[in-house]
């Protein structure tokens, strides 16, 4: 176990090193740097900016150093546990991430739960009743969720809930609850807002899960062990859920690990339209503003989550599937 983990971690470290270079390069790809982006923005509001001042700041931020030096400064900090400093938000990157990670996790986990709650029954149903009207309808529904661009769905939900219920669902809390302590009222308020992003994110991913589950289950349904269970005298639905669904879910459950990185990156578009206080809009903002350390930190975090997710997937799969665990 220890050796296996050590091997995996070593591989992860190597991948991370490569990833960090690529990330940093991606962020630097667009012309200009944080200050030029910032100056343009200030000019837009009518402020004028002194050139000497900018040069001084550029030196302070190390933006006039060559790529390698900038990268080295950043990565040596990261390795030492210092994720750097957000130029724009003017606070440590770790603090920014810390502040928003919780709510991002909450939204995303809720979305995953809803996603599965929608996709699994639908997938099972469409496999068991293959080619039925219900199967077609479920598939169609799943794919419509996939096909509607997220921003449009979010916008429509916002507008419709204003028209129909006279409530605005942007953000995750009403003003009176934003800074309040948790209470029943705040929870209700939260639920009154969070359903929209959760729905948008969930419908986008349901199709894929339905598709995989349906295909897997169709394979499993024709396996002899299903007949064995029938011959035992088990009730049809019970045996389907206990045996083939259990087997067909395995490859899916193992993809939960893959969802980990989406905590930050999946809901960028949704997050902006619905004004979610999650990490996604911050990622976008930092990329646009070329806020190097923040963007780098977030991308690196996504990378770490991806790799951790893979590891988690493997472990989960092994835990679920005795053939892998004991084989």
């Amino acid at each position, binding site marked *: 176990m220890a050796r296996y983990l050590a091997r995996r971690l070593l591989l992860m470290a190597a991948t991370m090193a490569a990833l960090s270079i690529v990330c940093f390069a*991606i962020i630097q790809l667009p012309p200009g740097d944080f200050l030029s982006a910032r100056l343009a923005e200030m000019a837009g509001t009518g402020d004028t900016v002194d050139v000497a001042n900018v040069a001084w700041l550029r030196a302070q931020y190390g933006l006039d150093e060559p790529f390698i030096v900038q990268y080295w400064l950043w990565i040596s900090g990261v390795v030492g546990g210092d994720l750097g400093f957000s130029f724009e938000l003017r606070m440590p990157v770790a603090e920014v991430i810390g502040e928003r990670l919780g709510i991002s996790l909450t939204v995303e986990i809720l979305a995953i739960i809803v996603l599965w709650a929608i996709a699994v029954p639908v997938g099972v149903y469409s496999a068991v009743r293959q080619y039925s009207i219900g199967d077609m309808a479920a598939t169609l529904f799943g794919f419509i969720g996939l096909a509607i661009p997220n921003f449009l769905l979010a916008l429509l939900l916002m507008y419709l809930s204003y028209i129909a219920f006279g409530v605005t669902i942007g953000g995750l809390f009403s003003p009176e609850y934003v800074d309040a302590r948790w209470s029943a009222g705040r929870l209700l308020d939260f639920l009154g807002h969070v359903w929209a992003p959760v729905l948008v994110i969930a419908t986008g991913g349901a199709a894929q899960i339905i598709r995989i589950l349906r295909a897997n289950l169709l394979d499993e349904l024709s396996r002899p062990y299903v007949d064995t269970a029938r011959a035992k005298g088990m009730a049809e639905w019970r045996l389907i859920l206990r045996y083939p669904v259990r087997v067909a879910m395995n490859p899916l459950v193992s993809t939960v690990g893959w969802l980990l990185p989406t905590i930050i990156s999946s809901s*960028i578009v949704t997050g902006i339209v619905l004004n979610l206080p999650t990490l996604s809009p911050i990622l976008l903002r930092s990329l646009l503003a070329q806020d190097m350390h923040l963007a780098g930190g977030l991308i690196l975090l996504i990378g770490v989550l991806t790799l951790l997710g893979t590891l988690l997937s493997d472990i989960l799969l092994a835990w679920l599937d005795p053939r892998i665990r004991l084989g």
Partner: protein
Amino acid sequence: MLTRSGDAAPRGPRRPTGTESPWALVWGRFRHHRLALVSGVILALLYLSAIFAEFLAPGDPQAYNARYTFAPPQSIHLLDRDEDGSLVFRPYVHGYAVTVDPEAMRRTFAIDPDKKHPLRLLGRSEPYLLMGFIPMQRKLLTIEGQGTPLLLLGADRLGRDVLSRLIIGTRVSLSVGLVGVVLSLAIGLVVGGLSGYHGGLLDLVVQRVIEFLRSVPTIPLWMGLAAALPRDWPPLTIYFAITVILSLVGWTELARVVRGRFLALKTEDYVTAARLDGASDLSLVFRHMMPAFSSHIIAAASLAIPAMILAETSLSFLGLGLQAPIISWGVLLQEAQNLRSVATAPWLLWPAAAMIVAVLAMNFLGDGLRDAADPYAT
């Protein structure tokens, strides 16, 4: 599997008999996938309209019209009353009665029942170039009557015809996916094929590279690359660059499919048999392996196209994809993605409907192709 000599109940479609070619068998299975069949027809129509976009679009997609900003869609009336009162088939649309509301800064439109503008099939139009090089003077549908535009799907904020823009946008949107997938396929086929066929160290390296690429977050990657495109490139070049960027991410999936297929086929008895016939590597790959998975690859590719179309839209939303004056569904949606449009001019969202239809159709087509891909599977 097949070594079983018991007579287990037959399942699935009956094993075909006779001399049908493999593609005929694929077609035979595909035909039974109703949704896929319908989707195929829809897609064919969409691609046809992309090809003949200028002919189908009633108006000039870039022509603005001050009097008709945010004009609602006209409806076509098929039957008209003749002078003697009898009904005749003579499609027409009503004109608009326009009033300006200076306070709200908008125009309000009402149907003007007195103004009837007959529609004409293949009527004369301004001269234009079909596909950019065939000079034409007729369009599918034209309107009679001076000064009244034909706005079957309404007009946008500049009074431009949404239908025309939608039809012209089909060209870019559908081809982004197609071109992107072709590029992905080219990369994926070479890399995945080499990796799967040769195996060994090469396979290991390729596997790692693919794994690595997949751990690079897509949106930042797209954003970085899209933002890094030189600004002085002409729009067409930008368009190709965007598709290249999309396929840079997309090829890994296809490479995995290809590699998997190669690995599976390598151990197939009939491939071994061909090798024992003395066939060369090239012959093995091209005569025996490629034909076996080409249908799978087509299916995988057709499932990758909608992802690319959606990606283009997302990039447009973030302001990093294609930009006006290029017309794509993504660009049209980007222009329509605000409350004003949703609330007061919902017809601007037609591109979304078109996109949903296209994405759905491609997915179902892909599913159908995938199911039909292997006519010999048991």
